[in-house]
């Protein structure tokens, strides 16, 4: 199997091979074959009577020591994976809420409220009113922090952003979460030794936790917009070619804009650039993004995106990266080993995410700007140790038009119809010009030739007039391959879709069509797409599970992706996974996720590694939805 479809990644890997440097692809090969018990979810290490394995064959053990069967083991894995994903997004969101509170109390001067309109809209939505900006910010932050412990009422960030139909369904099935951290704890409780042994009940518990994940994601996005501004369309570039030979290159990697936005903010300061120039970097400081925090600063500061999750090591392999500064999530520990082969300074910043051999510069909200400057100066120091013989920057880059927040999309649509911005979108869905909508989300995985599933599926779906939205490393993949351009629309969009994207693009003053793929943000930002869908459903007076909207994570990796996928299903979306999750060991769990879920929520998982077959299945799911609404299928 080829490692990647991205020429820049392949070129960097060729250099690594020459130098004998091992990357994620080598480590994956060294892991082969991977254990089939783990692959099918048939092992359990939850207690010290184990580890236990269930044999998928009749003549082996069918029960663990405690009596748990395959269904229980697999369902418990799903539950814990969702809980871990929820904990990650929740941690990100809580970090944001604490910072907003400090900002309101005057304890974080570097984080003023940047988007007051968003703050006011958010406050109104969650029932907070009155006061000046600081007071409003304080109340919103307090309300946000209340979301984490167990309340008497449903999570405000879930209840206030879903359709009524969804809320009713969730209430009926008993899956309404009342606290983000409390439902994570509940998931750990119900999956520990001798608690929940009903696979269906466990899965419903996982859905409840996933809905808390949705609330956490939404909260994180809302507060990021309040503190750093709601993204608006911006033109930038993506791929390793954005690294500059004559600049001090600093990569921000991880997830939370609390760090990356601050680095982006100070990077332009004259004093720092003078120091870079004095060190020999004639082009000063060049901040680039990696992974999702890269998406955050790409949308808000036009910071170019160097690369995405699975290929994060390649940024260092160029020999031109002076510092990689990380916060949390998707940071491969291997970065420290690769950085050792070069002059690159790996800098960790968060107390919960340290890596041996990296320099740790703790990032505090109280003096964030100063910490960011310290990080850039560490990069300038590292620049002086560059080995010119090791510099090999692949030239490939693509233009990417990014920054399509919900507000930006509605803004563009309002250029077509000022009074009723959603009308043009709905009219075109009804007419079939837009056959359906697909949200691509998730990661890049070493198990799939990098970006192959994304690029195959986007061509197939766009050809069939499906409007494409993307977040996270899916967005990164499309950006690197040039799918976020008007040219891609001209080349790949079906006639109906092309007409719509052109009409909106022209009305919005772009002088051409909107890009083929609309970049809606980082992986925590999937709620932006949900917001658009909810608005459309409410306007049409239908529920989400009736809309011709689907989701796909064709190269998924993380537990966060399991959580997002689960809430997408609960929200009513047919949700494709291109990597087989470790659930096939249980017939019951497989059946519930891929079929019974449809009866309960309307949404369900489609597991299909082949991108062409997956596209066909998504198109058929869209067709079924259109028929249900009485539209041309």
């Amino acid at each position, binding site marked *: 199997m080829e490692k990647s479809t991205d020429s820049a990644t392949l070129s960097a890997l060729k250099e690594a091979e020459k130098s004998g440097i091992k990357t994620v692809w080598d480590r994956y090969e060294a892991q082969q*074959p991977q*254990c*089939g*018990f783990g692959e*099918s979810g048939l092992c359990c290490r939850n207690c010290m009577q184990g580890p236990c394995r269930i044999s*998928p*064959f009749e*003549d082996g*053990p069918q029960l663990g020591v405690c009596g748990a069967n395959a269904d229980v083991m697999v369902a418990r894995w799903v539950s814990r994976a969702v809980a871990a994903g929820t904990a990650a997004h929740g941690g990100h969101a809580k970090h944001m809420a604490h910072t907003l509170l400090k900002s309101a109390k005057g304890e974080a001067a570097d984080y003023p409220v940047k988007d007051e309109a968003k703050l006011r809209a958010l406050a109104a939505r969650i029932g907070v009113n009155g006061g000046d900006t600081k007071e409003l910010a304080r109340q919103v932050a307090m309300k946000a922090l209340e979301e984490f412990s167990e309340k008497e009422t449903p999570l405000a960030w879930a209840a206030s952003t879903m359709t009524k139909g969804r809320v009713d369904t969730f209430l009926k099935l008993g899956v309404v979460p009342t606290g983000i951290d409390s439902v994570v704890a509940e998931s750990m409780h119900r999956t520990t030794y001798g608690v929940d042994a009903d696979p269906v009940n466990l899965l419903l518990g996982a859905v409840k936790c996933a809905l808390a994940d949705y609330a956490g994601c939404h909260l994180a996005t809302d507060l990021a917009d309040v503190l750093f501004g709601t993204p608006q369309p911006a033109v930038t570039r993506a791929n390793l070619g954005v690294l500059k030979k004559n600049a001090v290159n600093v990569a921000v990697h991880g997830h939370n804009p609390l760090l990356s936005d601050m680095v982006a903010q100070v990077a332009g300061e004259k004093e720092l650039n003078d120091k870079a120039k004095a060190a020999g970097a004639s082009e000063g400081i060049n901040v680039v993004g990696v992974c999702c925090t890269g998406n955050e600063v790409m949308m808000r500061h036009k910071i170019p995106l160097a690369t995405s999750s699975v290929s994060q090591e390649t940024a260092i392999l160029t020999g031109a990266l002076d510092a990689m500064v990380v916060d949390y999530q998707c940071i491969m520990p291997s970065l420290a080993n690769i950085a050792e082969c070069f002059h690159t300074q790996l800098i960790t910043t968060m107390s919960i995410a340290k890596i041996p051999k990296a320099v740790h510069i703790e990032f505090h909200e109280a003096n964030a700007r100063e910490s960011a400057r310290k990080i850039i100066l560490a990069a300038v120091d590292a620049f002086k140790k560059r080995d010119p013989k090791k510099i090999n920057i692949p030239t490939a880059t693509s233009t990417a038009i990014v920054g399509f927040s919900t507000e930006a999309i509605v803004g563009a649509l309002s250029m077509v119809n000022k009074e009723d911005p959603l009308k043009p979108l709905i009219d075109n869905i009804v007419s079939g010009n837009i056959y359906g909508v697909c949200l691509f989300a998730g990661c890049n995985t070493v198990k799939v030739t990098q970006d192959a599933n994304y690029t195959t599926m986007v061509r197939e779906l766009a050809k069939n007039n499906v409007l494409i939205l993307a977040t996270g490393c899916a967005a990164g993949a499309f950006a690197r391959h040039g799918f976020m351009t008007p040219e891609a629309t001209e080349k790949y969009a079906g006639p109906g879709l092309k007409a719509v994207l052109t009409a909106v693009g022209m009305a919005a003053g772009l002088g051409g069509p909107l890009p083929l793929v609309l970049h809606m943000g980082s992986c925590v930002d999937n709620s932006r797409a949900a917001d658009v869908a909810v608005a459309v459903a409410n306007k049409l007076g239908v529920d989400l599970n009736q809309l011709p909207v689907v989701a796909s994570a064709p190269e998924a990796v993380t537990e966060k992706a399991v959580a997002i996928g689960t809430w997408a299903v609960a929200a009513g979306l047919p949700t494709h996974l291109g990597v087989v999750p470790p659930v096939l060991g249980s017939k019951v769990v497989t059946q519930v996720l891929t079929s019974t879920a449809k009866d309960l929520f309307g949404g369900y998982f489609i597991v299909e590694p082949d991108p062409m077959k997956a596209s066909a299945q998504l198109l058929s799911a869209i067709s079924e939805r259109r028929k249900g609404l009485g539209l041309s299928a």
Partner: protein
Amino acid sequence: MNQIFVKPEKCMGCRSCEIACAVQHSKDKNLFSAMLQSPPPMKRLFVEAADGIRMPVVCRHCEDAPCLNACISGCLYRDDKKFVRRRKERCIGCWSCVMACPFGVISRDKEKHIAVKCDRCHKLDVPACVSACPTRALVLADVDRMAKEKRQRLVLVETQAVTL
């Protein structure tokens, strides 16, 4: 004569056999002390995968063993149970056995610079790898009985549309 047989369709690739083999060839024959042993103990069989099929590859103790025929230093010999084993002190690290073995199951002790191969756990009734296999993908069976079972299975396949 008993042989180790492999049923690839049952192999989950969990490598329990590899671990059990290394532990059996460690000083204390115990997982936890084996993990602390330095240099670490070596396994004698290998779980390999190709095209999505996984299986352990293990020494066949061939009756006309190419490795034994190729060993010029008198290290490899056939013991009284017909297992092909080593006289470690005689190995000169020429790797002729590696060249000759059609299964690729002879490896190299990088510390001692000698060849390492399966000794069929000659002190045990059942080899460690077979005992460790959770799906019975590795079985110890009499060669003649195994062949007979296969013939009987074939009869069923031919007459009752049972799949192999």
